């Protein structure tokens, strides 16, 4: 979506046209849902958190600075909602190790293998600390650049990079302990 469209829609919403917000919801519900799902590992939580994130974004839309990009701002709002949820729930990752990650079409046709890989990866992610998990999700699942990640998480550039490094290192160790590394990382 072009920035100029977003600015116009935000202007309309701030002017009282609530229905205009539907355009932003449609455009970004996928990425926000994906972020929440990767962070929590639960479809139900991701669904609730996506709703909560958009509601929060709507409430705080007046604080959005004209000229900024909407997407990173929405990610910041969503990430705060997710962090609060994880803090409150004190989620125990081991109990939810990726069991609920939904099936998705595997473009290579090897669906069972793809699903298993996805489940394992999600499991490893959920065993990481929240700050490390969020930078990995933003970098590799959501495809954000480091500058955007730093802006969204509030980290410095080099801190975000170090978190990515630490996260990958931890996953590598976990994979080796599981014997998963021998199958996958050598390919």
């Amino acid at each position: 979506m072009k920035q100029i469209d977003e600015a116009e829609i935000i202007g309309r919403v701030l002017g009282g046209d609530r229905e205009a917000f539907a355009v932003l919801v449609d455009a970004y519900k996928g990425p926000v849902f994906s972020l929440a799902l990767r962070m929590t590992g639960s479809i139900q939580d991701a669904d609730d958190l996506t709703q909560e994130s958009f509601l929060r974004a709507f409430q705080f839309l007046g604080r959005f600075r004209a000229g900024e990009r909407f997407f990173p701002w929405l990610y910041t709002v969503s990430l705060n909602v997710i962090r609060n949820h994880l803090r409150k729930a004190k989620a125990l990752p081991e109990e939810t190790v990726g069991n609920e990650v939904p099936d998705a079409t595997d473009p290579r046709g090897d669906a069972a293998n793809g699903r298993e890989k996805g489940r394992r990866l999600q499991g490893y992610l959920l065993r990481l600390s929240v700050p490390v998990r969020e930078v990995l999700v933003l970098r590799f699942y959501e495809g954000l650049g480091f500058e955007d990640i730093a802006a969204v998480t509030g980290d410095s550039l080099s801190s975000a990079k170090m978190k990515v490094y630490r996260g990958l290192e931890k996953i590598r160790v976990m994979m080796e302990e599981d014997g998963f590394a021998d199958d996958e990382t050598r390919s």
Partner: protein
Amino acid sequence: MDPVKDRELEKNIEALDGKGFSTETCEPESHWRKFDAIARMMCEEPAPEPPEDLGERVMARIRAHQPSLWKVFGEALLRPREVSFHPLNALRAPVSGQECSFYFIMVGVFYAILGVILMVGLQRLGASLVAPGWVRWQPQIALVTAGCMSAIGLYLLKDGKLALRMARVGTLVYLGFALLNGIFASLEWDIPVSAALSLLSTLVGVPTGFFLIRAIQNCGKRYA
């Protein structure tokens, strides 16, 4: 910590995007090869599809959302504004209504603090009972000035011609009153605080008034 090593590490991490990290120079058992494989696995994971009715449920909650008055007020205050404090620029260049508003609110804050200090100070000195009428009223005068200046400042946030006209009238009244206040207070020399009040009123009030008038004039240029 080795800064050269850190830079190298950050460079590698940045290049590791799960799409095209060059592993040719890495040793076969290098961690970077494994990191690249993990990053690729994550990038290749298909994005999960949200439930079909999610958007509709979000909009239903937004339609039903009724913010409390307190929240509406809080959000209005927290709305980002372009506020800058360049008093010298305000004397020369065109200023926005929001900047002008900021100056008025700051003057309001100054008089609010002054009012409280005078109120406490006069009581401690015991002057509130023995001082002549005009001096005794100084705390209240300062607090009313604070209220008026803040109200004009808030009105200026609307950044309209009418707000500017109001601000101009308010500032002229303020300037005149600052002069008169200095004169009246100085007539009551029988208590020492009146001399200080007279000086304060004139030394602060007159330059502040001229500054605000100049800022309003520069703000009005945008409507010329």
